[in-house]
C-alpha cells in the first residue's frame, strides 16, 4: 500500500513537471516525455504483483489530461509493464540497459501510435516533418533523460521498497 501511495504521488509530481516544464523544453518541435520515463523506471523497480493496478491508474490519469485518446497511454504503459516484467526476469544484472532499451522501445511505440491516431482522424500529416521535426528529437530527449530519471526513481524506490531495489 505504502509503495502505491509513494508511486502515485511521484507520478503526480512527474505529471506536473511534464506539463509545466518539460513540455516546453523543445528540440525542433520534439519534447521529452518524463511521464513515460517515470513509468518505465518505476516498472523496472517495482516487483509488486499488483503493479498493473497502479499502471492502470497512471494510464487513466495521463489519458484524461492529454488530448490524445485514453487508449494510447493505456496500450503504451501496459506494454511497458509487461516488457519490464520480462526484463526483471532476464536482465536483472543490467537494469540501466533495460531502462535504455525500454525507453527507446516505448518512445518509438508511442510515436507510432500518435502518428497512427492523427492519420486515422484524417489530419493532413507531413510524415517527413512528423519524423524529423518531432519524432527523432523526442526520442533523443527521452534517451538523454532516461538515466537521470532512472537515478531519481531509484532514490524514491528506496523509500517505497525498503527491502531493497535493483542496483
Amino acid at each position: 500500500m505504502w509503495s502505491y501511495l509513494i508511486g502515485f504521488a511521484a507520478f503526480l509530481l512527474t505529471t506536473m513537471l511534464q506539463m509545466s516544464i518539460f513540455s516546453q523544453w523543445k528540440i525542433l518541435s520534439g519534447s521529452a516525455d518524463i511521464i513515460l520515463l517515470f513509468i518505465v523506471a518505476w516498472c523496472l523497480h517495482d516487483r509488486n504483483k499488483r503493479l498493473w493496478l497502479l499502471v492502470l491508474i497512471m494510464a487513466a490519469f495521463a489519458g484524461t489530461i492529454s488530448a490524445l485518446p485514453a487508449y494510447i497511454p493505456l496500450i503504451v504503459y501496459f506494454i511497458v509493464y509487461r516488457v519490464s516484467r520480462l526484463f526483471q526476469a532476464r536482465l536483472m544484472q543490467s537494469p540501466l540497459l533495460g531502462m535504455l532499451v525500454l525507453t527507446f522501445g516505448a518512445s518509438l511505440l508511442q510515436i507510432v501510435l500518435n502518428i497512427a491516431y492523427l492519420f486515422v482522424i484524417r489530419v493532413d500529416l507531413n510524415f517527413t516533418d512528423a519524423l524529423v521535426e518531432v519524432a527523432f528529437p523526442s526520442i533523443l530527449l527521452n534517451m538523454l533523460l532516461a538515466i537521470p530519471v532512472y537515478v531519481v526513481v531509484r532514490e524514491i524506490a528506496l523509500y517505497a521498497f525498503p527491502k531493497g531495489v535493483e542496483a
Partner: protein
Amino acid sequence: MITKLFTPKNLRNLIIIMVVVGVLVLAFSGYLTPVFSFSVSPLISAQSWLSQRYLAFSDFFNSPRDMATLRVENAKLQNEVALLQSEIVALQENLAQSDILYTLLDFARTNPEHEYVAATVVGREISPYLQYIIIDKGSNDGLRHGMPVVTQQGLVGRIDALISDAARIQLITDANSTVNVKLQTAGVEGLVRGSVTGEITLDMVPVDTEVQIGDILMTSGLGGTYPPNIFVGQVLTMQSKQNVLFQTGSVQPVVDFSNLSAVLVITNFDSVDISPLVP
C-alpha cells in the same frame, strides 16, 4: 633714534622675518616645489614604509578576529541579498503578470462586444504532436465547450474539454485545427491549418488571387467556430503550383504561443457544431 632702531638684535630679527616672508612668498608662488618634493619625498617614502609595516603587524594580530566578524557579516549580508533577490523576482513576476492582465483588460475594453473571462495558463499538452494548453478556469467560471480563446494580440484557439476548475484549449497551431479567415487586403477567404510542428499555413486561397506578403489574416466567422474579425496572423510566403485550384502559404501567427501565460475566453459566443453536416 635710528641707531636705537637698528640695533644688532633688531636687525637680526628683521633679516629673519624678511627671509621667512621671502621663503613663504616663493613657496606660495610655486618656485620652491622642486625643492620641497626633493626634500619631502624621502620622508613620505619612510612614512609609507613605516605605515605598511605597522598595518602588516596590526593585521597579523587582528585579522583572525576581524575575519570571523567579517564572515558572520558576509553571511548575514548574503542572506539579505538572497532574500531581496527573491523578493525582486517575486515582484518582477507580479509586475509581468499585472502587465499582461492590464493589457488583456485594455483589449477587453476596446472590444466591448464580447464578454471575457481571464485565465492563467497552467500547463501544456504531454504529446509533442498535439498543441494544447491547460488553463485554470473551468465550467464553474461559466466556460463551455467550443468557446473561443484570445489574447490581446489575437486568436489563440478554442475550448476542447473542461472540468469544473480547468479547461483544455486546442491552439490554432494544432494539426487538427482549422480556422476560416479572410485576407484583409486581398479581400478573399481562406483556411488556416495547424500542423504537428506547431506552424500554421494558409490554404484554400483561389489561385487567381494576388496575395501580398504581410497581408493580415482575420477570422471570417464562417463555419460558426470563431467570431469574426479577430487577428490570426500575417502572410509570410505564398506558393501556387500549376494545375491546382488553390494556392497555399505560410503564416506568422500574431500570438507567441511559446510564451502564453494568460488568455481571455470569450463567453458570449456560441460556436456552431457543423460536424454532423460534414460529409
